[in-house]
């Protein structure tokens, strides 16, 4: 493809791509997301490719492997368009039937989803309970595109926001729009992205950096990976627009080294964007120069902490450094560096396309837009979910998640990943929103929602999360390194029946000092899960300690 010189040329190319495609032609999309891949969706995809050739229907049926469709425990997922007919748990032997009926525009009835509760059939995506309560603004395009082909992204309107920003808006106008949208950082803190951008923009240094934090590293968080692997161009488009608003010349996408498909998709996206002139010098004739490099971590969780991440990009050990000067003023090589999470960047193109007023019409009073949630645990339906901010947790757990399996009662919800918090099920009507969740002690954080049933041992849960964090602490500062380790030892003792009366007091002191005294966000929030469990489930700890000491004295 030739390098595009103007926004008009981009629109021309888009029209060519669209004209060459027949929207009524059936297209089979096989999910190649992480969970489906684990269920060998590759074999299903290979079967489709072979079957389409064998039946000689290549002219009648399109086929593509896409990123994550979202319904992870029902994989391999297959979606047949137009009309988004859903097939779940597809096996290679189902493939001939699906191909034959797709070619005829029919539905394979025996493979159609049936509601486990009511037995009701749901043929189309919009009817499947898991999907129908969602608002899939960020991830909706993923089943419609092959993430390794920029043409697919252009066909669904990709890079039109970039064209609009570069040709119709000044960098200040772009910034104002994002500020007005009150887009809050999806990485955990919920800090307004526009204000962060402004700080970097106004910092005196001329050299500025923008960075995508794609370092999602904890168990139960998988939505950023789905977004970045399934639609890398969307994140890249957001990044380029941000760089334009801020005045940055260089961008970085920082991600995990151990996700080969993600690395492949990002690499392909960068190459194609460069080839089309959407990256590089004088982008779309605007005079704006910008380039992006992909950078991998060294396999430690703390690499996702902003200052550690920037040390890592510099080529140093990813150890957090003090942040009394913000990285937005002094980041990579002491230059102003604006870091946003994958999901934050992915929101930018639609804000520019549809405007801040549209964005603020979605969500709750202080948290706007939608939120990606990684739904897992003791829940019937698990996967990547997108809902408007302010959606009650009940909707996510019961309407989308289908409740707890095998008729067991839910006990608690853990939100926010390894540094999040657990709340009792009685709080299930709480809205998913930055400030509300933080007040409950279960901040949105990494965006993982874990449902726990009545048999869950909360002390074991706290121990499990701490065990993860203890191993991921870099070890630089005392409260994080030693404090967490002592907490882990105390919890292990309690579980082993060796708890002692003063353990709760020791835990309270350790959690307080670790959050007050640690150097970086990992340390500061590492004791949040334990704090929330001591807040809501203290009697369980007390009972276990009492039972342990009773058993201990009996033994004597």
């Amino acid at each position, binding site marked *: 493809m030739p390098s595009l010189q103007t926004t008009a040329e981009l629109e021309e190319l888009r029209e060519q791509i669209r004209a060459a495609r027949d929207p009524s032609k059936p297209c089979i999309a096989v999910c190649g997301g992480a969970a489906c891949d684990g269920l060998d969706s590759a074999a299903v995809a290979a079967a489709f490719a072979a079957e389409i050739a064998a039946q000689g229907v290549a002219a009648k049926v399109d086929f593509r492997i896409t990123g994550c469709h979202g319904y992870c425990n029902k994989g391999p997922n297959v979606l047949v368009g137009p009309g988004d007919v859903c097939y779940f748990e597809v096996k290679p032997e189902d493939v001939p039937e699906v191909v034959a009926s797709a070619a005829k525009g029919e539905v394979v009835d025996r493979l159609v989803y049936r509601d486990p509760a009511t037995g009701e059939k749901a043929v189309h995506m919009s009817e499947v309970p898991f999907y129908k309560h969602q608002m899939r603004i960020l991830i909706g395009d993923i089943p419609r595109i092959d993430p390794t082909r920029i043409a697919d992204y252009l066909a669904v309107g990709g890079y039109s926001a970039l064209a609009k920003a570069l040709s119709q808006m000044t960098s200040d106008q772009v910034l104002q729009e994002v500020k007005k949208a009150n887009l809050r950082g999806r990485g955990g803190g919920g800090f307004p992205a526009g204000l962060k951008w402004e700080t970097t923009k106004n910092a005196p240094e001329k050299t500025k950096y923008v960075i995508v934090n794609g370092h999602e590293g904890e168990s139960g968080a998988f939505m950023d990976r789905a977004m970045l692997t399934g639609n890398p161009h969307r994140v890249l488009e957001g990044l380029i627009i941000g760089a334009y608003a801020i005045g940055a010349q260089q961008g970085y996408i920082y991600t995990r080294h151990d996700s080969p498909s993600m690395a492949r998709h990002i690499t392909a996206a960068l190459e194609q964007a460069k080839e089309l002139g959407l990256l590089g010098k004088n982008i779309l004739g605007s005079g704006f120069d910008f380039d992006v490099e992909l950078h991998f971590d060294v396999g430690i969780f703390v690499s996702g902490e902003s200052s550690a991440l920037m040390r890592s990009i510099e080529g140093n050990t990813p150890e957090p450094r003090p942040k009394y000067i913000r990285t937005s003023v002094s980041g990579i090589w002491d230059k102003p560096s604006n870091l946003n999470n994958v999901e934050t960047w992915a929101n930018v193109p639609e804000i520019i396309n549809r405007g801040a007023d549209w964005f603020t019409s979605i969500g709750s009073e202080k948290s706007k837009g939608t939120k990606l949630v990684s739904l897992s645990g003791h829940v019937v339906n698990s996967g990547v979910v997108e809902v408007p901010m302010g959606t009650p947790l009940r909707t996510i757990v019961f309407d989308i998640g289908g409740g707890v399996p095998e008729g067991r009662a839910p006990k608690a919800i853990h939100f926010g990943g390894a540094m999040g918090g657990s709340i009792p099920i009685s709080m299930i009507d709480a809205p998913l929103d930055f400030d509300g969740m933080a007040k409950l002690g279960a901040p949105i954080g990494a965006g993982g929602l874990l449902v726990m049933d009545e048999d869950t041992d909360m002390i074991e849960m706290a121990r499990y999360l701490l065990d993860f964090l*203890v191993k991921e602490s870099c070890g630089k500062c005392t409260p994080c390194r030693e404090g967490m380790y002592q907490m882990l030892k105390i919890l292990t003792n309690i579980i082993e029946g060796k708890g002692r009366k003063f353990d709760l007091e020791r835990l309270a002191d350790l959690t307080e000092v670790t959050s007050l005294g640690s150097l970086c966000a990992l340390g500061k929030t590492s004791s949040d899960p334990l704090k929330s469990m001591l807040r809501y489930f203290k009697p369980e700890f007390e009972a276990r300690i009492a039972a342990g000491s009773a058993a201990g004295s009996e033994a004597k």
Partner: protein
Amino acid sequence: MSDITLHIDGKEATVPAGTTVLKAAQKIGVSIPTLCHHPKLEDYGGCRLCLVEVESRGRTNYVVSCLYPAETGLVVRTRSEKVDKVRRLIIEELMARAPDAPELVRLAYEYGADRNRFEKEASFCVLCGLCVRYCAEVKQKHAVGFIENGHVREISFIPEIAAKECWDCQECFAICPTSYAQAAYFLTEALAFPGQRKKESAPIGVEGDRMANIPAVPITFVKRPPASERELAG
């Protein structure tokens, strides 16, 4: 650069812009405990003992003074109930590692810390990183570094460098708050290059030095095959 005036424990301090709160406090004779701070080294912020309470624009915050830059009108309190509690806990945590380190014993006395509060797992090192940073920043030899992360992190001398560089330096021994740097060095020497630290002359002119008469031999390291191959061979 212009000067900045702040208040530390009620006393006025005027320092050049960019000065840390710790240095400002030291300048006016207010003492703040530190373990990982050294005037010749880059500020590190690892031990967190120098945590203080600062009040700026009506907001109270807890920051480590060795890193926090002084700002005009800043009010600093180097002792408060909360500050003392944090320091006490940190001392208690570190005493699980180095229960008898003189500096910790002294601090424990000052802050009423209980050396037996947490389960001991003596490693004799508080991971202040003074030896590592001194060797890298001042001596620029990188003979000692950190290995591993989190609670299993430790310092480790790199035999190839230590054998060449350490015999006439050993300056890190004096700045180590627990004597562990010295122990780690001699352990490395005993295991990796016994008797080879001497080159032309003895480093420290000790009378009756047993090593004084051992001739210098070229240093060679036995390269061990990787574990997987060793298992196969065995």
